[in-house]
């Protein structure tokens, strides 16, 4: 349960808006960390910074204790950090295998590979293995992703992130567009990903889902972390209280209006 990804005193300023005002955050291996907070608390900005789509105004990011600069999605990926977006970021006309390997295709060896021919058999095998390991219910590997249900699409997106992530998976409201049954299976996927020893960050507005899947809950408010709870030791009332500012936790991170 070592800290694999850490953000220290991150600020992000857009013009006059302080989206993040000295936020701290930790992700541990084999732990689902829920990141909650009201709209505008800075959750999405923080995730964007950790996934490399935004750069912080100031502050420090550490991977395995080493300070790093994550200035692009590809850099984040190189550090083993993968992101699942709410709007999926899948190409609907491509099949699950093609989406799985998009941008990371396995090429044939030798001259044909250098000419741009892909090793489709290897990619299909790899995809099946990745889906099977997570128990993801993707049966049709040659159908286009666009024709699948929302849950299946999200399963493809989660499986893709899980297959490539070496350290951390960031999930930005992965269940926002899903029905009850589909949400259940995505939450189940998240638990399996955690059991494989990856750090999982789960952003959601749904308190029941957070309580169900998270091991640890970090609460953000007004651009900084205001509280950290063990999921087993807290209640929904306490979480909502922390989000709205009614409850403050005595752990040194007092909230101040900045």
């Amino acid at each position, binding site marked *: 349960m070592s800290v694999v990804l850490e953000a220290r005193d991150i600020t992000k300023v857009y013009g006059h808006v302080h989206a993040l005002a000295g936020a701290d955050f930790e992700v541990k291996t084999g732990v689902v960390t829920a990141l909650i907070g009201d709209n505008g608390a800075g959750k999405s900005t923080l995730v964007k910074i950790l996934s490399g789509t935004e750069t912080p105004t100031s502050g420090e990011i550490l991977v395995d204790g080493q300070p790093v600069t994550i200035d692009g*999605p*590809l850099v984040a*990926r*190189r550090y083993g950090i993968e*992101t699942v*977006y709410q*709007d*999926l*970021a*899948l*190409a*609907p*006309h*491509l*099949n699950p*295998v*093609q*989406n*799985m*390997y*998009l*941008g*990371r*295709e*396995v*090429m044939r060896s030798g001259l044909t590979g250098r*000419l*741009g*021919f*892909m*090793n*489709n*058999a*290897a*990619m*299909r*095998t*790899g*995809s099946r*293995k*990745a889906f099977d390991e997570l128990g993801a219910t993707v049966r*049709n*590997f*040659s*159908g*286009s992703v*666009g*024709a*699948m*249900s*929302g849950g299946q699409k999200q399963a493809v997106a989660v499986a893709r992130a899980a*297959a*490539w992530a*070496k350290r951390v998976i960031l999930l930005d409201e992965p269940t926002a567009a899903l029905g009850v049954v589909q949400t259940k299976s995505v939450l189940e996927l998240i638990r399996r990903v955690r059991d494989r020893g990856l750090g999982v960050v789960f952003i959601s507005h749904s308190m029941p889902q957070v309580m169900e899947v998270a091991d640890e809950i970090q609460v953000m408010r007004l651009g900084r972390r205001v509280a950290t709870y063990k999921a087993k030791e807290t209640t929904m009332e306490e979480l909502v209280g922390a989000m709205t500012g009614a409850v403050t936790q005595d752990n040194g991170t007092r909230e101040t209006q900045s």
Partner: protein
Amino acid sequence: MTQSEQTTAPAAAQAGAPPSEEEPTGRLARLARLQALQIIIVLAVIVVIFSILKPSAFLTVFNIRGIVQNTAILAVLGVGMTFVIITGGIDLSIGSVLVFSGVVADKAMANIGNGQGWGVAIIGALVATGCGLAWGLLNGFLVARAKVPPLIVTLGTLGMALGLAEVFTGGVDLRNVPTVMVNTVGFGNIVGEIPWLAVIAAVVVVLGIVLLHRTRFGLHTYALGSNPEAGRRAGLKVSRHLIMVYAISGLLAGFGGWLNLAFFQSTTIGGQTSTNLSVIAGVVIGGTSLFGGYGSILGSVIGVFIPATLQNGFVIIGIQPFWQQVVVGVVLIAAVYVDQQRRAAALRGGSPRMSGLLGHLTTRREAAGAEAAAGGE
């Protein structure tokens, strides 16, 4: 990213993998092939109708050869256009780029030695494709980096390329084409009754099919048309890829300019105003989606054959050839309607596999029926 990094995670168990029980190609490819099949049926119906009405004139080697020759250059342009439209773009400039490249190649060939022989012709081909490539790169740069919509960029270069061609020539067609080039590439048969033009076009088409449907470049072309943001997040070099796609279209338009010189022995400055629309219509009739992400080159090739075959057939059976435009318009709208239905079905997330495809087939047949009706009038 290095190759070795790419192949690590999910591909670990590739050794000794049994041949897949599933079809090796994606449903995308299968659908595309089916779509191409539908359009082949439409073309076959047209051919059968004309053959029944005037077998002695329509179904002759001479006539078929004529249709193929008239369509070869459009097919070459259609290959590039298919790439562009699959990315969700459009290239209106191809007709003008063709003229511009022909003019520059003509002038170059006229100024080398006595302007005759294969050496001169080949230099002409290089000059023409070079000109086309330059225009394509300009289009791609403006679309991908300057973020000007492709419709406007290529409308602009359409005017620029044609205008410059007219400036260079004073608006008078040039005719300095090596005789050997005209007699072989332009009119000659490579073997039997098979024209050079058809063989050259077929080679371009096959190369295009391999590039689009078999390589990573082709896959990324579909991905960008399907969801550019997904491509960007997956680390694809979106701008560079778009520039290359427009460069391919420009290069083929330039090469088409050289073929055009050989065929017409003229730069045909005033004769290419509707080439872009003919090619776009063919590509769309062939099932490629104007919204990107979907399409096939085989479909495009069949698609450009349909207007040419109708034109030829109407002349032969004595209908005013103007009807061709009417029928092509109907087919074009029908093709886009089918595409819309397919997209709607896909968005509903249902199973467009059976109902959708059956729907497409029946729609296609109705379209074919409409043509049959029009052809029989």
